[in-house]
């Protein structure tokens, strides 16, 4: 009896093996023969589409459940997110008043039209998708994996998207870029590419206006050497930013020169907020001119003064929100790959969060010019 039972088990095992091998061979044949149609024009079977959709939704939900959402109703985050959306997202996902391009509508899967569908995702889920991208869909991951702050700015804008109409969208996304006065000649030569990724003025200074988001640095009258170094570092991926890396990578040597000298030539506009008496500014002033020698912090103006090397940035009049964000990046070690970044990283790690806020506040209200040179000299 025992012998017979053993034999029947063996027989079943052999048949299973044959079935598995057979299925494998059949699958290989199917692939090799090329019978399966990969055409985007054919679409998926309804069942396949459903399975893919559910798998993606569930995966995003599971992977994003642990995330903590920062406050997202900051107008400067929303503006920065919107400007990036215009260059980085709108070409595929559309924008208010701007339907998707027919080419995009022939992709498989077709990119979601976000203005009408973004509400189906939570902020955590949007963050996860923007940061990581989605396999098999053409949705890329964020270029700079360390820049969660930028991803949250995009999410801040995405949360506003469903209630943003075309007029508001243009004012948020186009910033200082004046795209209405282009002449026919320009359109003929360069196209109507309003969504070009590299339209600087969407985020940065216009001819006469400062950046509309305080998370974006003012470039007017910055030293051309510093601007060139920054763009090269972004292009080489040594300075991380999902927003600036793609822009800088598009520029050739000549454009780099032209842009750097253009911005260096703009007139520097002095601070928008002024409050000379506050104790924070007093502390910031002390830090900028004398440092905290005990903590190993040299005076900021030793390197960021009027007569410092042109490869160091000038900070007078710069937005404090931008300065704080950059100092936090230095402190976290995200800007230590470049020569200049390695210097600042060492010092930023010695700054307290109060130091960072006070110094940023001080520099924002500092008038560019001789005041920048007043560092503590020997007695």
């Amino acid at each position: 009896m025992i012998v017979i039972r053993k034999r029947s088990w063996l027989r079943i095992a052999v048949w299973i093996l044959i079935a598995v091998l057979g299925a494998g061979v059949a699958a290989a044949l199917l692939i090799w023969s090329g019978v399966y149609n990969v055409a985007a024009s054919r679409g998926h079977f309804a069942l396949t589409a459903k399975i893919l959709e559910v798998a993606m939704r569930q995966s995003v939900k599971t992977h994003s459940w642990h995330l903590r959402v920062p406050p997202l109703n900051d107008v400067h985050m929303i503006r920065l997110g919107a400007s990036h959306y215009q260059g980085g997202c709108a070409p595929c996902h559309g924008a208010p008043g701007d339907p998707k391009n027919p080419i995009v509508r022939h992709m498989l899967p077709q990119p979601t039209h976000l203005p009408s569908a973004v509400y189906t995702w939570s902020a955590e889920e949007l963050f996860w998708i923007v940061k990581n991208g989605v396999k098999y869909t053409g949705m890329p991951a964020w270029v700079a994996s360390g820049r969660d702050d930028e991803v949250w700015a995009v999410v801040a804008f995405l949360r506003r998207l469903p209630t943003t109409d075309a007029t508001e969208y243009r004012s948020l996304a186009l910033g200082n870029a004046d795209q209405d006065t282009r002449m026919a000649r320009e359109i003929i030569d360069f196209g109507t590419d309003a969504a070009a990724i590299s339209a600087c003025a969407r985020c940065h200074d216009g001819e006469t206006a400062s950046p509309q988001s305080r998370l974006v640095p003012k470039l007017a009258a910055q030293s051309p050497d510093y601007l060139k170094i920054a763009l090269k570092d972004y292009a080489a991926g040594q300075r991380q930013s999902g927003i600036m890396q793609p822009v800088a990578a598009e520029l050739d040597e000549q454009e780099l020169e032209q842009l750097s000298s253009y911005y260096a030539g703009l007139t520097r506009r002095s601070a928008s907020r002024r409050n000379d008496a506050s104790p924070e500014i007093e502390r910031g002033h002390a830090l900028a001119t004398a440092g905290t020698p005990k903590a190993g912090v040299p005076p900021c103006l030793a390197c960021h003064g009027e007569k410092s090397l042109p490869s160091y940035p000038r900070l007078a009049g710069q937005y404090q929100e931008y300065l704080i964000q950059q100092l936090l990046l230095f402190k976290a070690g995200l800007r230590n790959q470049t020569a200049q970044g390695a210097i600042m990283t060492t010092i930023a790690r010695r700054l307290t969060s109060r130091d960072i806020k006070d110094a940023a506040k001080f520099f924002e209200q500092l008038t560019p010019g001789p005041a920048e040179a007043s560092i503590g000299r020997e007695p």
Partner: protein
Amino acid sequence: MLAPQGPEAQRIFGLFWLLTMGAAAIVTLIVALLWAALSGSRLWRWLAGETFVIAGGIVLPVTVLTVLLLLGFLLTRANSIAPADAKLDVSILGEQWWWRIGYVMAEGKRLETANELYIPVGVPVALELTSADVIHSFWVPKLAGKLDMIPGRKTLLHLQASSPGVSRGQCAEYCGGPHALMSIYVVALEQPAFKAWLLSQTAPALPPSNPTERRGRELFLAAGCAGCHTIRGIGAGGTIGPDLTHVASRRSLAAATLPNDASSFARWIVDNQHIKPENRMPPFRQFAKGELTALSAYLASLK
């Protein structure tokens, strides 16, 4: 330690020989007793007796150790009491990983140098030791015993050099990664030479003597070096790192880590985190080759 150059070291040298000779005598005695016991002579009965065990096992060690303890106390006391005629006050601040040296001058003035202690021969010197961060220990074996440098506390060490010469010292308390690279030179000079040295050190920095050095000085100021370093006379007043006013007059760079020449300056500026990992200075890699040469040439000219 075996070549004492001053009265403090001489006392320690005496104690060293007393200890060594005493230890040798005791070892000889033990070996002899062991031999007596093993050889089976009749002596072993007496050795195993109560009288011998008490005398040799309790009385002798207690006496010897008490005498040594008293000697040690006396010696420490002799070395730590300020000689009434201490003529030079110097403060040494241990920092990770270098020595900040301050001379108290006439009229309450202070002269700051680094990593090299100059003293006059035959003059008792009072060293006030302390630390800016962790516990260091100041040890120049040819001149005196070790003394810890403790954050928030001042310890006093006295030393006197009996003849001119250079003694090397070392931080003798583990103080973090590059602890081994925290050395110091103590240079004893005859009194007239010492006075001349002091005078030269109090002078402001030498002006650049050629365009390269002049360019180096500009770079020193523009690149932010002055945020941490002092060079008297050019408007550089940083106090975080060593005073560089006469840096090229020293015997070494980075606390006896590198030879003192232009190429070492260049190496240090660019690559200091590999030479002395975790030291407080950031690496400055942004200089073009010519700039680095100019900056190093300027620093190497600061005799």
